[in-house]
């Protein structure tokens, strides 16, 4: 089994300025529950995952020439599609991982990255 990080990128503007209504939120959560059950009952395992607050809430710490870190407002890179959430999923191989990634409830993109195994028994 290999661990894959699903990085979910979407267009934040699609949500508009208003935070989602409780109904919308519940609908999204329900869709994500369905996704997680789908993974868990098809030979994979969801090890973790969270939604992230929009990039308007992001702060980036980057190295500065003077040596001390520079703190700037905003995400690491200003792009139309921003990282909006992630899952950590265990799957047999990339084909299975990609099959799971296709079921993530999002209108955006899902980048699938293998996690480098660092645990001593791996």
């Amino acid at each position: 089994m290999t661990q894959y990080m699903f990085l979910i990128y979407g267009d934040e503007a699609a949500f508009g300025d208003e935070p989602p209504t409780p109904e919308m939120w519940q609908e999204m959560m329900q869709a994500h529950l369905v996704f997680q059950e789908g993974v868990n009952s098809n030979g994979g395992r969801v090890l973790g995952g969270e939604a992230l607050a929009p990039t308007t809430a992001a702060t980036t710490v980057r190295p500065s020439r003077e040596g001390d870190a520079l703190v700037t407002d905003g995400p690491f890179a200003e792009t139309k599609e921003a990282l909006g959430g992630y899952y950590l999923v265990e799957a047999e191989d990339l084909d299975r991982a990609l099959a799971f990634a296709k079921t993530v409830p999002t209108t955006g993109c899902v980048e699938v990255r293998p996690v480098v195994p660092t645990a001593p028994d791996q």
Partner: protein
Amino acid sequence: MTPAPAEDGRAAQVDAAVSAAHADSWARVVAAAARASGGNLTQAEDAASEAFLQALQTWGSRGVPRDPAAWLIRTAHRKVVDQQRREATLRRKLPVLATTDAAPREDAVDIDALTALDDRLRLVFTCCHPALAMQSRVALTLRLVGGLTTAEIAAGMLVSDAALAARITRAKRKIETAKIPYRVPPESELVDRLDGVLTVIHLISTTGHTAPAGGALRRSDLADRALDLSAMLAVLLPDEPEVLGLLALLELTEARAPARVDAEGAPVLLSDQDRARWDADRIAAGLQWLDRARQRLGPDRAAGRFLLQAGIAAAHADADTFADTDWSAIVALYDRLLERWPSPVVALNRAVAIAFRDGPSLGLAAIDEVAGDARLARYHYVPAARADLLRRLGRRAAARQEYRRALALVDNDAERRFLQRRLDSLADDVGDTPVTGSHQP
């Protein structure tokens, strides 16, 4: 000291035997080694290369084995097993135990246990996995399945040896790190994934037939290897219409190759080709594959894009002269192709077929309908096709302008010479209707 003639002859014999085995069995040896290594393609490639190297030495001293492929597969297999043993030992941090380097006994391992019919298929599907960049798929397939050296592939793809080697290394590393599975996809994904494999082979063939850049029009290494790969797939998946369709298409395309360039290497248009120079045997073979492919179609299996393209190639092959070409049938095939494969290039080819069916004026109108597609903006065949139709209409000034546009976009030297010659043949003419701004000083 020069070797005795007998020894010389023997060395040549061994060389020939190893070359023949390489052409014949490289993919099988890599595939068997990959199976032994659990899908580690780096290990498999190294083991296969070492096995062929060892064949050069061992066959020289002990003679060429009765079944060279079996010998190579056993040797490559043993090299993988040795390598894994060494790695396992290293991991246990124990001293390395002596590993035997003796040649394997002919009967040491049952050859059937080392290979399976679908091993080469697994290899192809892994090399053509959609998670790899298209250029990497092409390079990996040519290296691991086609057996071309990195230098040969680099020459074919017009990149430096170092860049090509790095691309292959990166691709193999991604296969390992991302765990791209070494297997034939399940039935539910087969048709989709197969299309990806056929696309890679078709791309190798088109790169071989009309090199995107460089001096010569055709690079036979790539075109030949695409045919080999396609024939191999037809053996492994004999009931897939698209597999047989691609083989038919490649045979029919290859059949025309001798007539496609003139003595100076410039391309000759289909209308001007000497059809006596077409390879009749290849045409017959292509038509047979096409027939077999069509027999495998059914209500739930419509003709795919390779079969439809083969149908178009067959319609050309069927015509004794250019004037005999059944353009209505060809336009109808393009209509179906466009439905299956809505590509602007297909639409352009359809427009050209319309020009031959309905005349250049309607052809120009058909080209205008598709030429606005942004994906065609830098495609030199658009102005080249317009130029040819304008020339046929006697609108020489407008034709010249389009030839100049095409010349500005083309990268292949042979095609450039052709376009320049066409432009020159129109040059000293005053022009038909004066077109503002088209007059060259």
